[in-house]
């Protein structure tokens, strides 16, 4: 239903003429301003717990949007976000922690030299983390993009495991299984949602450019794309690195949100969560990813109900811990079987859509 409507309303001569572009620009600006005011109100009005949740939702949006770029838009079924988040989180934390804090944490083996004395401000650390993670993506890309489909999935999953094993063993860099503690709580609503804006901007612009078309062409038919002169390897690599960059930065912000990281935080579970988001939103739809990231984050909170004791018609049903994940798994399987294309399919919510909808409303009056 939503899909058909979106498709119909989005149809029309493309790309939009100059005037529409300008209108969209102003509408976007207004939306950002409204969002900023909204965030400000929420930040001051809500408890610390909910502010934390809003930050988490923001990070999930970043992660889902960038994950969708490689999985949904480019059609390369990667399972590596947990690897990239781990990389970003560790790099950022190692760069921002104070030398004193570091020497306190690294009890088994001291931290290697340059890292042991460095302490950078957050923005710089995040930038470096993003670049290092993109570099990791670059290195991974060589073996990963020699294979396709499910093999690609398994290899990227394998990289996630390798990163975790390395984090557990490279004592003098990662502090091993103990992880890093005492990371300053620096991630605010502004950081999380600011990064959202940046990620959404870059990813949307990329998708709408000629490069985005090439990525979609690769998804549709690799052979035809290559025959039409597109270097598929480097384009996959491009999508992978952009995705890695944002996931690395988001990982860094996550570290500064929860203040303690250890290798066991970055299991496949994180990737699974993101997978649900992009599947529910519709593989290939950026706005779908945004919507689903918010839905899943807060839906997860709401689902805590099923884990709490419940009294129904006088019966006491004990709370079942862990039931949420069972429900989430069923949601994923259910979507695959009954609604494979997710909520939005490959369509996007656009200003054009909104204005067209508004136009209809006023016509009907």
């Amino acid at each position: 239903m939503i899909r058909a409507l979106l498709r119909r309303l989005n149809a029309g001569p493309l790309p939009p003429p100059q005037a529409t572009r300008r209108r969209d620009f102003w509408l976007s600006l207004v939306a950002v301003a409204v969002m900023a005011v909204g965030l400000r109100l929420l930040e001051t009005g809500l408890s610390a717990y909910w502010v934390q949740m809003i930050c988490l939702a923001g990070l999930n949006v970043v992660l889902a949007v960038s994950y969708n770029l490689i999985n949904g838009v480019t059609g390369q079924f990667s399972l590596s976000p947990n690897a990239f988040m781990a990389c970003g989180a560790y790099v950022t934390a190692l760069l921002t922690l104070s030398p004193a804090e570091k020497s306190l944490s690294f009890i088994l083996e001291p931290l290697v030299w340059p890292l042991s004395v460095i302490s950078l401000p957050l923005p710089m650390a995040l930038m470096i983390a993003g670049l290092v993670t993109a570099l990791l993506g670059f290195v991974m890309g060589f073996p990963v993009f020699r294979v396709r489909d499910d093999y690609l999935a398994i290899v990227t999953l394998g990289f996630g495991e390798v990163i975790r094993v390395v984090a557990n063993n490279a004592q003098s860099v990662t502090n091993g299984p103990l992880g890093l503690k005492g990371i300053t709580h620096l991630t605010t609503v502004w950081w999380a949602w600011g990064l959202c804006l940046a990620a959404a901007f870059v990813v949307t612009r990329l998708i709408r450019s000629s490069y985005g078309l090439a990525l979609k062409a690769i998804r549709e038919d690799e052979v035809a794309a290559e025959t039409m002169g597109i270097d598929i390897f480097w384009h996959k690599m491009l999508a992978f690195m952009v995705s890695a960059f944002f996931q690395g930065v988001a990982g860094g912000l996550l570290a500064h949100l929860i203040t303690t990281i250890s290798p066991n935080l970055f299991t496949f579970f994180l990737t699974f969560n993101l997978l649900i988001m992009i599947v529910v939103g519709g593989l290939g739809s950026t706005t779908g990813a945004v919507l689903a990231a918010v839905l899943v984050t807060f839906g997860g909170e709401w689902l805590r109900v099923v884990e709490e004791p419940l009294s129904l018609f006088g019966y006491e049903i004990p709370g079942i811990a862990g039931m949420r994940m069972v429900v989430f798994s069923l949601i994923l399987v259910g979507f695959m079987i009954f609604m494979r294309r997710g909520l939005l399919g490959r369509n996007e919510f656009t200003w054009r859509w909104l204005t067209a909808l508004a136009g209809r409303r006023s016509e009907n009056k």
Partner: protein
Amino acid sequence: MDALQQLINGLTLGSLYALIAIGYTMVYGILRLINFAHGDVLMVGCYLAWFASAQFGLPWWVSLAGSMALTAALGMLIDLGAYRPLRSAPRISALITAIGVSFFLENLGLVIFGGRPKAFARPEIFNELYHWGGLRVLSLSVWVPLITALILAVLLYVLYRTRLGMAMRALSRDLVTVRLMGIDTDRVVAATFAIGSALAAAGGIFWAMKYPQINPLMGIMPGLKAFVAAVLGGIGNVVGAMLGGLLLGLAEILLVAWMPELAGYRDALAFVLLIAFLIFRPQGLLGEKTT
């Protein structure tokens, strides 16, 4: 002497990987689907056996057989409920579903059995310690490769000498033609899931006896590694899965034995091997070149 000791350890571990890998390889051969839930099916098999032995006091071989039968049914149920509706869907949809089923089983396991590991008793017969010369060998380590060899022999007999087996092999060549020939492909696929799951249960139960404990997440690592073993051997090839399992088991044991300082990286070895194989020999040890 030490080398012989390591060889036996590697053989035992490799046999376990092999038992689990066979299910992966058979399902992949026919459906081109990585059954992510395979490792978790193994976990369920272990809990079933644990209930039979620890709660009801049944002899080990009864609980093994019972668990294998029930796990086979679970495998078919998963196929029926989750994979069959997606037979004609893009491969990635089936893969996502498999990941979903895997998480479902893991978390349901956590909800029902709790996260705390349970001790898994090692039956007397597998718990003897032989001293041969300087070797110290647990009887389990002798039995596991033998039982694995026996199971493989039976499986090869089924695959090459029975109608069902021939249908399976034909199906892994060409699903569409076989369907046109009037064979009920759904039943053959169900039988494949049943056999694969039963073998995974067997592998899992011996695994549990080896370590000797079980937990709801125990299937993840053996499952992933067994898949890697299946790829190393040449996916779709049962004997290949066996070889791949042995190769991986030996490689892990030898890594730890020869380079103890790298022991912590043992769990990464499988993936390093996987990547190396995909680059240099994507068809695996015994596989034919495809795609």
